[in-house]
């Protein structure tokens, strides 16, 4: 098991955002976390990447307890998150942004190789390599965030709402790329509001409601689950 979250709870001040969440991610999987706005999806991501401290429970990565580990040290262990929305460095060029992704690494040859790989995955980024990140369109910024996370050569890639605010065409495209990344050997945990796409692509998925996991199963199962259909897929 690559990632194991055991009974994790998290507080924002006095408000409890997560009520004892448990989930697992195996090596080689794409696992999706779906749920409505405010269900705690992004919060779960923050707990895993270490941006927010947890109030209780344990997080195991690669067999090691990382519950109390600082966020930047988790990156060194191979856990990298592409933050939601506009989490890129607006003043840095595309190349500088990607370079920041490799901040924890010192193997120049490997970095150059990964840069080629990312620019191949996202030809748009290659075209705009000298442009400041802030001048990119929403979709391009999203791609940059994913590409930048890949530059750390993570064992587990955390994607927070990769399709947020994108046109349907781009959503397709970004999910195709996520599948491609996974086929190249990176395990992916993604948080999505776009349940349809996420469930279709994911091996397994969890449904989150008000800080609790209420359902889990394979992507296929949940895609056909009546209650999930009702609540998240927008079909009666």
């Amino acid at each position: 098991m690559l990632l194991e979250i055991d009974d994790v709870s998290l507080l924002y001040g006095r408000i409890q955002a997560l009520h004892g969440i448990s989930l697992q991610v195996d090596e080689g999987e794409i696992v999706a976390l779906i749920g409505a706005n405010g269900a705690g999806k992004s919060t779960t991501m923050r707990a895993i990447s270490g941006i927010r401290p947890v109030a209780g429970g344990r997080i195991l990565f690669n067999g090691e307890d990382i519950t109390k580990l600082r966020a930047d040290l988790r990156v060194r262990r191979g856990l990298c998150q592409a933050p939601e929305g506009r989490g890129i460095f607006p003043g840095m060029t595309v190349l500088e942004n990607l370079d920041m992704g490799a901040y924890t690494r010192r193997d120049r040859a490997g970095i150059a190789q990964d840069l080629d790989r990312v620019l191949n995955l996202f030809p748009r980024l290659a075209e705009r390599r000298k442009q400041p990140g802030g001048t990119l369109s929403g979709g391009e910024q999203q791609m940059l965030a994913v590409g930048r996370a890949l530059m750390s050569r993570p064992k587990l890639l955390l994607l927070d709402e990769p399709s947020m605010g994108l046109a349907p065409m781009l959503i397709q495209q970004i999910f195709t790329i996520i599948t491609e990344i996974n086929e190249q050997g990176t395990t992916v945990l993604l948080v999505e509001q776009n349940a349809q796409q996420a469930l279709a692509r994911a091996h397994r998925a969890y449904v989150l409601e008000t800080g609790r996991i209420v359902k889990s199963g394979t992507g296929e199962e949940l895609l056909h689950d009546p209650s999930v259909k009702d609540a998240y897929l927008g079909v009666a």
Partner: protein
Amino acid sequence: MTTVLEKVRAGREAAGERWRGAPRWVRWVLLAAVIAFFYALPNKEFYQWLGPIPTTGSNFGQVLFMMSIYVLLAVGLNIVVGFAGLLDLGYFGFFAVGAYTVAVLTSPSSDLKTVWPWLTVLPIGVALALVSGVLLGLPTLRLRGDYLAIVTLGFAEMIRLTATSAGFLRGQRGFNQIPHPPGEHADGTPIFGVLDARPYYWLVLTLIILVVLGVRNLTRSRVGRAWISIREDEDAAQLMGVPTFKFKLWAFASGAAIGGLAGVLFAGKQNFVNNQSFELLNSIIILAAVILGGSGNILGAIVGGGLAYYLIERFRGVELFGIELYEYRFMFFGLCLIVMMIYRPQGLIANRRRAAEFKDRRKEVIVGG
């Protein structure tokens, strides 16, 4: 109005392009010429040809010395505010730490009676400022934005009030007979005397060049990249594996050390230090200087620091319709700042990155609104 501004902007961008495009040797020659100009500046034989530039109401050498101190302070604060993006309102506190270290350890009026030479105390003053930067940073750098500004503001006030009320810091009576830097001319007279401010100016100028070289190298290293990433998006920086707290502390400490150095130099020139030299206003002026010049840009900080002090001092002895303009100097300075913030929020010499960040933030505001 806008067309003029655009023309100016285009002109400046072209100048930037030309500078970057020029061959290496051209840049070196130009840079050498600029440095030579500033070394020559305090000599009357030189500045008498410069028309209205020299100050009329006060000794130009003295003004240049204070300008150089402000430049040094601005370069130091620029690391904190410009590179790491931490709003520090109490930066002058570190200057005070440097100056008071010199005063306490060298002056015969100090209770300690150590009366060490100035040069011995120089590293101690810088080190103490650095340590106080770390001590202030450890608990406060977990705060962000406005909170940090408030805490640092409190720090500067604490230093000032301690200087006023703690017995051994002698309040307004202060410390006198603080020794000058060492060195003698061939004829045995000291290089660093009481009347002539020029040697001090040259000393600070030389140190500025060294500090700028150091800072420039630092900002082009992994440290600099980490600072810029923290400034642009602290969460994202952490998600990329940057130990943000450590690097913020680093920025704070190196800025503090430079502030302390400026304080040590100031005390070595002044001969006398008391609590009157550390008003809150100075912290604000330095911060304004960094923003005026273009925060995040070393050249901007240099220009801003020099200009801020010069602009204020230039009004001394100038009368218009029988009104002494010096009385209104801060009003003019404030007006300058307001106009700047409206038309050029990124500062006189903008940093390419910084400009993009500003645009990005504006976009965010529109999206949010």
